[in-house]
C-alpha cells in the first residue's frame, strides 16, 4: 500500500517541480516491478505459466522473479494461504523493502475461495494490506497481467516526492500498526448433517 491517500493534495498544489519529479519516480517504479512469487498452490502453476514464454511478463519489466524478499517490490500471493503458512507469509511481507505492494492472485488469497475450513486464511487481507485482488481459480495469466497493469496505474497516481517535501514521509507506524482483522468468518456453524456430542453447549 504505497503512499496513496484517497484525498491526496490536488496536482496544482504540489507545484510544477514536485509533480514532474513524482511522474519520473513513478515511471521508474511502475516499469520495474520485481515480483516476489509466493507460489503456494495451483495459482503458482499459472504464475509460472505467466513467467513462461507465451504470457511473458518480461514485457512489463516484471520478469526478474527473485525468490528473496530483499530484492522485490510486489508480493504476489498465488494460492491458498493456510494459517500455518500465515506466519511465513507475514514475515516475508515485513522483510520486503519499501515501497512495496501486494497482489492477491486467485480467489483463495483474495477471500479464502472455496475453502472455509479450519485451516485456511479467509483472505490475505486478514494479514496485510492488499493493493490488487485478482479473481479466478486459477486466474488466467492475462488476468494477472491486467492486474499488474492496474497496479501500475495505481503507482502512477502516487506522490512520493511531494510527501518528501511536505515532510510527511517517515510514516513510522505503518509497519507496526496493528492491522485490524476484518470479522473472522471462520465462526463454527452447525452443518445440516454434523453430529453434536450430547453434552456440547451452544455452538461458538
Amino acid at each position: 500500500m504505497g503512499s496513496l491517500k484517497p484525498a491526496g493534495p490536488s496536482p496544482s498544489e504540489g507545484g510544477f517541480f514536485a509533480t514532474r519529479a513524482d511522474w519520473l519516480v513513478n515511471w521508474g517504479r511502475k516499469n520495474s516491478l520485481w515480483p516476489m512469487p509466493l507460489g503456494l498452490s495451483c495459482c503458482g502453476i499459472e504464475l509460472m505459466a505467466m513467467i513462461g514464454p507465451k504470457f511473458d511478463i518480461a514485457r512489463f519489466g516484471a520478469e526478474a522473479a527473485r525468490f528473496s524478499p530483499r530484492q522485490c517490490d510486489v508480493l504476489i500471493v498465488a494460492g491458498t494461504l493456510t494459517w500455518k503458512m500465515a506466519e511465513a507469509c507475514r514475515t516475508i511481507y515485513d522483510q520486503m523493502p519499501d515501497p512495496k505492494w501486494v497482489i492477491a492472485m486467485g480467489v483463495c488469497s483474495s477471500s479464502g475461495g472455496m475453502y472455509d475450513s479450519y485451516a485456511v486464511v479467509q483472505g490475505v487481507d486478514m494479514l496485510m494490506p492488499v493493493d490488487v485482488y485478482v479473481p479466478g481459480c486459477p486466474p488466467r495469466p492475462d488476468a494477472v497481467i491486467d492486474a499488474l497493469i492496474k497496479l501500475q496505474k495505481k503507482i502512477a497516481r502516487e506522490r512520493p516526492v511531494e510527501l518528501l517535501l511536505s515532510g510527511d514521509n517517515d510514516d513510522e507506524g505503518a509497519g507496526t500498526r496493528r492491522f485490524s482483522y476484518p470479522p473472522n468468518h471462520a465462526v463454527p456453524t452447525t452443518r445440516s448433517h454434523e453430529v453434536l456430542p450430547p453434552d456440547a453447549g451452544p455452538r461458538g
Partner: protein
Amino acid sequence: MNALERILSALGDPAPQGSTGRDGIPCLEIEAKDARRTIARLKSACGFDTNTFVTAIDRFPAEPRFELLWQFRSLVHGDRVRVRARLDAGPEGPRAPSIADLFPGAAYSERECFDMFGIVFEGHAGLKRLLMPEEYDHFPLRKDFPHQGIEPDRLYREWDRRRHEKPAGSAT
C-alpha cells in the same frame, strides 16, 4: 484360489474372519492388540511387501468409536489386503500398535492419523503432528469437530503478539 483363501490359509491358526469387499479386496477383521502379529505374518508369509496406507474412520455415535484401516499390496502375487481393527476411545484417547518398523512407508500415515484423529501409535519413533502445527490442540477429522474450526487464527495471533514483544531483529 482367490486372494482371501490364500491369505487365510497362510495366516494359519487363529485365522481372523475375512470377507471380500465390494472392490474385490479381501478384508480381515482383527483385534487391535494382535495387529502387529497379523501384519508381521502378512508381510513374511503372504508376501505383502508394500503398505498402501494407514488411515482411520470415526464412526462417532457408535461405540467402539474409531476404526483403524491398514492396506497392503503384494508385488509378487499382485493382490491387495485390507486389515481393519476397532479401537474404543479410552480415557486418554485411542491407542494402537505402530507398524513403522515393519513398513517404514507407514510412518507418515500414522503421524497423519495421530494428527487427524488423536490415535496414539505405541512404538512410533517420532510421533508428532504431520499436517497441523505442533501446538494445535484439536483433532480436526473427528466428527464432533466443526468444519470451520474453533478459533483457527489463535496460533497466528499469539505468534504476532510474541513477535511484537520480542523483536526478532535483535541479535540472538
